């Protein structure tokens, strides 16, 4: 059986009729006892299982997913990867993710198609440019690569922008993180799943948590639609459904669930080779490797668990996109979708042990979870293996909502993310 992906194995299998490939991950029967259980088969959960095995040698791990892996927000995002954040705590956590992303294809032996095409944030007024420069200073002090761009530089980078004299959102300059870009979202999920499975993790799909086993005030495992599984440590990484699991465990979270929509156009020839974010329209656009224009924008206005999205916000996003790129006006939309994101008052993640001892969580990434997957996995794995915070995750503990030491990236970064 061919296990390792390489040009040589592709050549070899080509001669052998492609008959020797083994499934990318095993689908074993659940066992009654594990050393650790991870709930949620999205990027964060799969990364947690992988790093538990790789970094900590904990391989007797179950990963439980109620649907299919990568079928939630990991398959519903706009694939943007960046780490240009305002607060040092955020720069540390997103910087860790970004660093790991850069080496992830080699680490997982799975091409995640990381494309460091740059992430450009526009400034639409003189004052907008001054604010951008101030934010940029903080980002640079945090050690994250980021530069200020003049109007001429932005024009060279994005010739298809609406540069006419009557543009509703004229551009005065911008900031760019050149090491940012996009990655193939499915490949991130599948790559982590394959690598975790090969290290011994049991990936169990169609397995929904119905209850937690609580004995002596501690979480001792889970009751699922595929039976009961016990473990001394359980971690959850379920994004927009965090409050649902928290209710089963007997506590509440500072989380509001909203639908976040995105859409793609029909594919066209390459016309945009960077990610463009407009703080004023709230819209961001990139072009996928297949040529589709990938369009994202603001949250829906109505708290929701419906993975569809509402039309008024989609209309606003597309209107903003057309103001920015009138040249795209003739394109047809191919697909529209929504993921349920976990929005927290300070737009920063919540990582740590929950009020139910033995149960750990990684949630609250809101609209920016994809870019953080390797860090979310590393930090939750560290918690599950050691029972203690990694230095990088400590500021993101749930207790910040009592102490008041919030990490307010909604204010710091100036845009929802």
């Amino acid at each position, binding site marked *: 059986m061919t296990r390792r992906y390489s040009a040589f194995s592709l050549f070899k299998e080509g001669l052998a009729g492609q008959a020797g490939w083994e499934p990318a991950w095993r689908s074993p029967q659940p066992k009654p006892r594990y050393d650790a259980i991870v709930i949620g088969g999205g990027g964060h959960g799969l990364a947690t299982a992988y790093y538990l095995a790789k970094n900590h040698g904990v391989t007797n791990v179950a990963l439980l997913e109620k649907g299919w892996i990568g079928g939630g927000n990991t398959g519903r995002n706009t694939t943007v990867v960046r780490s240009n954040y305002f607060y040092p705590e955020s720069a540390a956590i997103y910087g860790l993710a970004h660093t790991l992303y850069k080496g992830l294809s080699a680490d997982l032996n799975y091409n995640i198609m990381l494309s460091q095409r740059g992430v450009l944030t526009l400034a639409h007024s003189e004052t907008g440019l001054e604010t951008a420069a101030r934010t940029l200073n903080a980002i640079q002090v945090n050690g994250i690569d980021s530069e200020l761009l003049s109007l001429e530089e932005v024009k060279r980078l994005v010739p298809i922008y609406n540069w006419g004299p009557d543009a509703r959102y004229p551009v005065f300059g911008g900031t760019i993180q050149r090491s940012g870009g996009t990655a193939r979202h499915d490949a991130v999920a599948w790559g982590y799943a394959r690598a975790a499975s090969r290290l011994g993790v049991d990936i169990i799909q169609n397995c929904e948590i119905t209850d937690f086993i609580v004995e002596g005030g501690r979480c001792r495992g889970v009751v699922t639609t595929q039976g009961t599984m016990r473990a001394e440590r359980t971690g959850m990484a379920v994004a927009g459904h965090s409050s649902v699991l928290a209710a089963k465990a007997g506590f*509440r979270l500072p989380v509001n669930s909203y639908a976040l929509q995105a859409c793609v156009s029909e594919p066209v020839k390459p016309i945009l080779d960077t990610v463009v974010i407009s703080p004023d329209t709230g819209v961001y656009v990139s072009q996928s490797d297949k040529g589709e224009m990938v369009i994202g924008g603001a949250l829906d206005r109505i708290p929701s668990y419906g993975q569809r999205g509402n*039309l008024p916000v989609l209309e606003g996003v597309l209107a903003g996109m057309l103001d920015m790129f009138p040249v795209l006006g003739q394109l047809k939309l191919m697909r529209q979708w929504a993921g349920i994101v976990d929005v927290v008052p300070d737009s920063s993640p919540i990582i740590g042990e929950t009020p139910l001892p033995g149960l750990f969580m990684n949630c609250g990434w809101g609209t920016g979870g994809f870019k953080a997957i390797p860090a979310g996995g590393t930090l939750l794995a560290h918690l599950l293996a050691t029972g203690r915070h990694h230095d990088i995750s400590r500021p993101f503990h749930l207790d910040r*909502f009592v102490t008041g030491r919030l990490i307010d990236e909604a204010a710091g970064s100036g845009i929802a993310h």
Partner: protein
Amino acid sequence: MQLFPCPFCGPRDEAEFHYGGEAGNLRPDGREVPAERWADYLHMRANPKGATKEIWVHMTCGEFFALARDTVTHKVAGSVSLGEAERQP
């Protein structure tokens, strides 16, 4: 475009409304409120999947009211003024 029922103006476009929070989240009273209770009031939410009761404001008439709806189907069960909601908990 969905229609939301304002108890004062009748069915109107959803874009005229703004979400105000979960119903029944009352501000703690008194001087000796512990930090945990403040955090609970300010930040912690039930955030239910399914049936929920919420406070919304109809921005065009400025009135706050209670709206019962489903967070998965988005189906609206009904709306009442806050005074009415207090009389029938």
